[in-house]
């Protein structure tokens, strides 16, 4: 179990993320708790630790980009602890980290306050005092719902684009049944771009999702990995162009055959045989 009392902590990068920033691969739930109620966080921490979850206790509200880089599944927040700025924080987090399950766990509140919190974007509202087991069950329910509704949730089937077959179940891409030998990170990059087919993804956005952290200004990692992916695809599918550069912005995935107009169809999803 990992536990800490800091507002700027990072988990190890998770293997796969979808375009909303929430992990889609099964694994231990990553939870952050913003609360200063030491009794509550200790008991909750003990229970989730026993369940193999990874959790962080934050004593100050982090910035949404920090939450994004922690690659959390869920966040429990005590609005009372945050004072008058709590609502603003809640709204900001729900808007900025749309893939994150947010559960408000706070003291007594009015119906109007609970309705306001849920309408702002909170997934659930728990009133203290509460049993840690109930909190855990609600977090699980929120994460379950999030996974079901996540855009990448139905991505088990191969993604077909041009001559390329991108298989998330094997973390690999194929041309004519032959593996193009992508590394894990190269696959994640290609998969992310292919899922957002036709849309320009900015470098910062790509880095955030593939590397799991905020991109430092001047970091050329995205460019280098796009180059590597292009080279590997080109070896097997030399006549097609898949990844297009938008100078000063980022990259767009759109398979184009030689002398062809860009295809309009979205990536074809086929049921996974795996």
């Amino acid at each position: 179990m990992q536990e800490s009392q800091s507002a700027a902590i990072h988990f190890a990068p998770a293997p796969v993320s979808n375009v909303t920033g929430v992990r889609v691969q099964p694994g231990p739930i990553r939870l952050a708790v913003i609360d200063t109620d030491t009794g509550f966080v200790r008991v909750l921490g003990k229970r989730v630790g026993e369940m193999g979850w990874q959790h962080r206790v934050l004593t100050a509200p982090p910035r949404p980009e920090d939450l994004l880089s922690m690659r959390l599944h869920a966040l429990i927040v005590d609005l009372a602890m945050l004072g008058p700025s709590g609502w603003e924080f809640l709204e900001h987090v729900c808007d900025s980290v749309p893939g994150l399950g947010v559960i408000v766990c706070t003291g007594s509140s009015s119906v109007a306050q609970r309705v306001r919190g849920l309408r702002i974007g909170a997934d659930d509202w728990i009133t203290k005092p509460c049993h840690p087991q109930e909190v855990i069950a609600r977090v699980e329910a929120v994460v379950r719902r999030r996974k079901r509704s996540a855009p990448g949730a139905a991505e088990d089937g191969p993604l077909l684009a041009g001559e390329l077959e991108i298989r998330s179940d094997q973390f690999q891409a194929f041309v004519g049944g032959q593996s193009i030998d992508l590394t894990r990170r190269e696959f994640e990059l290609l998969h992310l771009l292919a899922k957002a087919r036709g849309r320009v993804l900015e470098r910062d956005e790509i880095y955030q999702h593939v590397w799991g952290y905020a991109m430092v200004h001047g970091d050329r990692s995205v460019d280098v990995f796009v180059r590597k992916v292009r080279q590997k695809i080109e070896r097997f599918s030399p006549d097609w162009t898949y990844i297009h550069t938008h100078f000063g912005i980022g990259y767009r995935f759109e398979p184009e055959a030689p002398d062809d107009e860009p295809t309009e169809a979205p990536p074809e999803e086929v049921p996974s045989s795996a």
Partner: protein
Amino acid sequence: MSMLRSSSNGSSGLLVLFEESGRNVERTGSLLRELLDDFPEHSSLARDILICEQEGDRITHDIIHEMTINGSKLDQRDAYELARALDDVVDYAEETADSLELYGVEAPMEQAQELAAVLAGASEAVASALTHLRAGEDVSSELIEIHRLENEGDRISREAIASLFKSGTDPMVVIRWKDIFESLEQAIDSCETVAHVIEGMRLKRR
């Protein structure tokens, strides 16, 4: 302006070795710039930089040997400082190249490329200054250029390090690149030390 006339002060061998060291510094700076510009495409250049570092050690040894055996009309402390600063430029450049591999760097940072370009420029000016020094020619423009480039390197390095400490950055990126930025800056600083020593030698000869 006439400076250190090798023919008249009996320091010819030493000045030839300094010139050779300057060429080695220039080559190292150029290789490091090439390595970072296209990293990781030409990672094998790190091996060439290591050879430069070994060559730098040999030249430094030869300089000290020359001073010990044949003596010199150059101030021995100045000569030693100059040899050490030239060796430092190459050592820090090699440390930078080595760190890229040691830390498993996968892609360059633009700021590192800019610093490597500054180092390559300063190294070129160092080599040119040492050639002019041996010929007894004016080195003012080279010294001014080195100081200008050092200031430029200092600015880039400060901004680069500050950018690492923005919230949400991968701690591994911070660890890797802080060290790399610092070794690049130290290499550039060593070029400035070379300029300072040459400046001191020039003043003593007036």
